[in-house]
Structure formats: C-alpha cells, structure tokens
C-alpha cells in the first residue's frame, strides 16, 4: 500500500511546506525590507512607523504584497516654520524598474515641534520566480509656510507643492472673502455650489506610456498597426490674465488613443522667462461628453528660437515655445474605451524662471462652464470635506486659523 500512496502523500505535504516556508520568508522580508531614508539634516524626522495590515499572499503565479504603512513624522525645523506640504518618493526597483511613485500630504499646517502622520497604502505584484527587493521610502521635499523648500527634489516636488500652496492660498482667500462679504449663509451657499461641482466632475481612466520607449510586444503592436491616425487640432480657451498664450496644438487620434501631442505657446510676459507651462486637457467623446483628463506639461520646453530642449530650457519673454511630450494615452470609462472626438486646452499653471508661479484666479475659473468643471484644488477638497463632516462652524473656525 505504501508504494502506491507514498508519492501523493509526500506531494501533498512536502511541496506546500516548501511553499509555506517561502511565503513565510517573504512575509518576514516584507516588514524588514521597507527602507525609510530621511536625510540627516532633514527638518522633518521619523518618530515611528507601523506596518498595519501588511501581508503577503500568493495569487496564481504571482506574489502580492500589500503594504499598509503609516509614518509619524515631526516638524523639527530649526527656523520654527510651519510645514505646509510633504512629499515622499516610493521606489521598488526590483518590482517596477522604470517606474516610481510618490505620496504627498498637501494643505497641512504643522507648527514646529508637532507630529503628523502620512499613510502609505501600497500593493506590489510580481511573478513568484522574480526577485524580491526592498521598497524604499525617501523624502523628496518639504514646503514651509513661507514657500521655502527643503529636499532633493527628484520628483520636481518643489514646483508641484508650490503650485498646490498657491492654489490653497487662492481658495482660502476666496472663501474668506465670501464669508466676510456675504456672511455664513453666503459661505454655505458657495460651499454647496463647490460640492455640486465636485460631484459633477466626470472622470476617465487613463493609461499612459512613453511612445519612444515602447518596446517588446507593445512596439510590435504599434509597428503592426498601420491604420492611419487622424490629426486632431486642439481648441483653446483664453484666460484673460494668463501670462502664456496657447497658440496651436495637434495630436494623432485613433479611437481611444492619443499619440504624440504637441502644443505651441507664447510667453506674453515682457520681462520674465518661463520655465514650465501646463495646459489643462479636456477631451470630448463621440456623444459630446467632456472630461478633464489632465494636462500637457512642458518641462524643459523647447523654445522655438533655440535648438533642442533641455531640463533648464526656458521660453524667453515674448518668445514662443513648444510643449512636446513623448507620450501615448488611452482613455476608457467603466472598462470600455472612449473614442475621442475633440480636444480643448487652456493654460493652468506657469512657472517663471525666477521660481514664481501663476495659477488661474477664481474669476478666471468662473469665466467658462468648461473651466468650472476643473478639479477642485487639494485645499478646496479639504474645506468641502470639513463642511460635509463637521458642519459650517468647523469650516469657519478652520478659515480663521491662518
């Protein structure tokens, strides 16, 4: 009898045991392989971190690592500045070479000496036979209330956080002005309008890859796809106060795919060079629905009067430049492709060479129904949430803080 049942029995015992050992080792690694790295002179220091519901599971031929971390940081700034924004860089090179992530906490007000938390909820999936490497959490930048910045800035977090902070100041000032001019009833009405606008904001799912770097099967698919794409031109909305004018733009459109967009812009400022421009991008489907999907950013814009683009390229005062990101985007909604029928753009952000930034005013945003469909700023999201969860008095109290 033993010679007939011993092999199945051993298969059922030895292999799962080996798999269990492997999974156990991976689970232990999951907790120990997270490397949190803050510079020695960082104005924010790590007080503690928890791994929460972190777990490893096998799913078919893949290992799934769910990290549910929470970092407690302290503002130890020697200059006693309040922290407004923090951004952390997340990398897992053994999982996703060529990709990285970030987690940021904008619109906070943490005085020196106080703690704050930052959640990191992360899911990593890799084939079972692939190497298991560390997840690195590094500080990329800290923005203070006087808009001064600290950090390695590998993700251009200084620009992003400065723009968030300028938008936050704009929206706080707007609601304070409403409160002062129209009282709490007027503020309540405006907040309800803001909530309705946020709720009406339709979203598309987007997949993005770099056209020039697409290799392997994706490249083969592109090479095999000989169907000609339609050349579609951008329509532009002009904002009265914008220091940059979008002149013309075009992209190749095929079904739900947009390739190689480019937009030509002109620096209208007579004195300052422009280092970065971002064009809000609204797409219209065949049924006439419009979606704000994102932006065409121009970092290291190629000025038309210079040869080539570099990371420090600028558009001089009065000159034209070209935003030409190397990207292919695919749009879908509820799992189904959304065929693109038209595109509209408008200038949403400008960074000058001296580090100053421009964002549209609330008046600009109210000038067009299309602009009113823009996503609320991070600060406006927070204020709307305070009203929704805690009521008008809490909102008024928060506006009075700073």
């Amino acid at each position: 009898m033993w010679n007939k049942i011993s092999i199945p029995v051993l298969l059922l015992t030895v292999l799962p045991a080996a798999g269990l050992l492997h999974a156990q080792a991976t689970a232990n690694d999951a907790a120990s392989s997270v490397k949190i790295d803050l510079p020695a002179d960082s104005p924010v220091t790590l007080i503690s971190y928890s791994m929460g519901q972190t777990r490893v599971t096998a799913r078919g031929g893949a290992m799934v690592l769910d990290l549910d971390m929470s970092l407690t940081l302290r503002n130890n700034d020697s200059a006693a500045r309040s922290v407004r924004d923090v951004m952390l860089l997340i990398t897992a090179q053994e999982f996703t070479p060529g990709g990285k992530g970030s987690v940021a906490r904008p619109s906070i007000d943490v005085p020196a000496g106080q703690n704050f938390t930052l959640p990191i909820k992360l899911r990593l999936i890799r084939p079972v036979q692939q190497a298991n490497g560390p997840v690195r959490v590094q500080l990329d930048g800290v923005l203070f209330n006087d808009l001064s910045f600290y950090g390695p800035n590998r993700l251009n977090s200084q620009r992003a956080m400065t723009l968030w902070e300028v938008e936050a100041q704009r929206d706080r000032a707007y609601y304070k002005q409403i409160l002062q001019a129209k009282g709490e009833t007027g503020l309540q009405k405006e907040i309800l309008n803001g909530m309705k606008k946020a709720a009406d904001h339709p979203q598309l799912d987007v997949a993005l890859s770099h056209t020039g770097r697409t290799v392997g099967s994706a490249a083969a698919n592109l090479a095999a796809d000989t169907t000609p794409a339609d050349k579609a031109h951008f329509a532009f909305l002009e904002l009265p106060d914008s220091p940059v004018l979008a002149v013309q733009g075009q992209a190749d459109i095929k079904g739900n795919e947009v390739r190689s967009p480019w937009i030509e812009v002109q620096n209208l400022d007579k004195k300052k060079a422009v280092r970065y421009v971002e064009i809000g991008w609204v797409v219209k489907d065949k049924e006439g629905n419009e979606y704000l999907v994102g932006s065409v950013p121009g970092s290291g814009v190629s000025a038309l009067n210079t040869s080539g683009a570099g990371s420090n390229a600028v558009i001089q005062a009065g000159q034209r430049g070209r935003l030409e990101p190397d990207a292919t985007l695919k749009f879908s909604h509820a799992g189904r492709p959304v065929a693109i029928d038209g595109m509209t753009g408008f200038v949403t952000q400008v960074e000058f060479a001296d580090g100053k930034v421009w964002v549209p005013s609330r008046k600009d945003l109210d000038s067009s129904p299309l602009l009113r469909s823009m996503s609320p700023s991070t600060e406006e999201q927070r204020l709307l949430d305070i009203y929704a969860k805690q009521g008008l008095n809490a909102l008024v109290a928060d506006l009075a803080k700073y």
Partner: protein
Amino acid sequence: MSTHPSETDLALLAGGDCSWLQRFFLRRHVARCGDCNDTLTSFAELRSETLELANNNAGIMPETDWNRLAGEMRANIRLGLAAGECVGEAPSAILPVSWKPRLAMGAACVLLLAGAGIFLHGLLPNDNPAGVVHAATVESNSTGVQVTTGASSMTLMNHAGVAGDQTVSSDGAIRASYVDGDTGTVTVTSVYVE
C-alpha cells in the same frame, strides 16, 4: 420389520436401485405384507409403462444420449476452471501492506530537492531573458494609480475605497488626490514613468 417401508424405498426396490442388504429386508417384508406388495407391484407397472411410452414416442423425442450430455457438462466445467486460472486469483478487498522504504525515501528526497529549487529560485536576481525590456506604463483606475513593468506592478491605493480625483500629465505621471475620511487630510499619490 415391524413397520412398513416408505414408498421411496419401495420405488427404489422396483427400479433395482437399492443395496443388496436393503433389497433383502424389503423383499422379506413384501413377501409377507400384501399392501406393500401391491405398492411395489404398482411401481413396477408404472416403470414398465414409462419405458413403453418412451419407446413409442422415439420419433417425436429423439434418443437422449445421457453420456453425451454428461460429456458436454464436464467439458464446460473444465473450460470454466481453465478461464479462472487465466484471470488469476481474485483481488482481496484490502491490498497487502508492502512497505518499501527505499522508494519512499527516494521520492521524498526528489520532492525536497524540487521544493528547495523553487525556494532558492525565488532568491535569484530578475530572470528576465536577456534583451527583453519591458516598458513601464502608468494608469489610473478606481482603486488608485499604478505603474506596471512586464508582469510586475506597484499600485498606490486610495484609502478605504475613496475614489480619488485623478489627473494625468503627458510627461509620464498620473496623480490621484483624495480626502482621508478619518483625519480629514488630503493625500496625493502619484506614479511616474522614468
């Protein structure tokens, strides 16, 4: 014999199928007993009538060759026994235990080696075939933002299923911002293609 013999014994006597001792005693009794003599006589007449009837119907009922029938029966029995020997002994309900430790140990060693191979293979560096490069792709969905390279991916999840406010930058980044329901603070997650 104080009692009368049975009809079966008298029938056997009439047919001549009794032993000689039994026949001796039966004939003594029949010689002195009229009833039993009558019964024996009726059995003898019945037997002779049966034989006569069989002889008269020989055209209708062919001669029965009892010897041939007996031969066929014996042949069938031998055939059945021969077939049984070819099939072999009928299996018992429970197989006999035959512990073969060498075979079991060998199988265990092979399986342990296989398990160790799987375990150690997971510790090896990335085993992508040389020359195959996967482009990273970023995408947004209702659960968060994700960067994918080949079969691997990293997803920065939204907390508690909150739908983030998502936007894409055509320079290779997708961002989602959402309000943490517990703390009321905003978290912005982004993924980038390098």
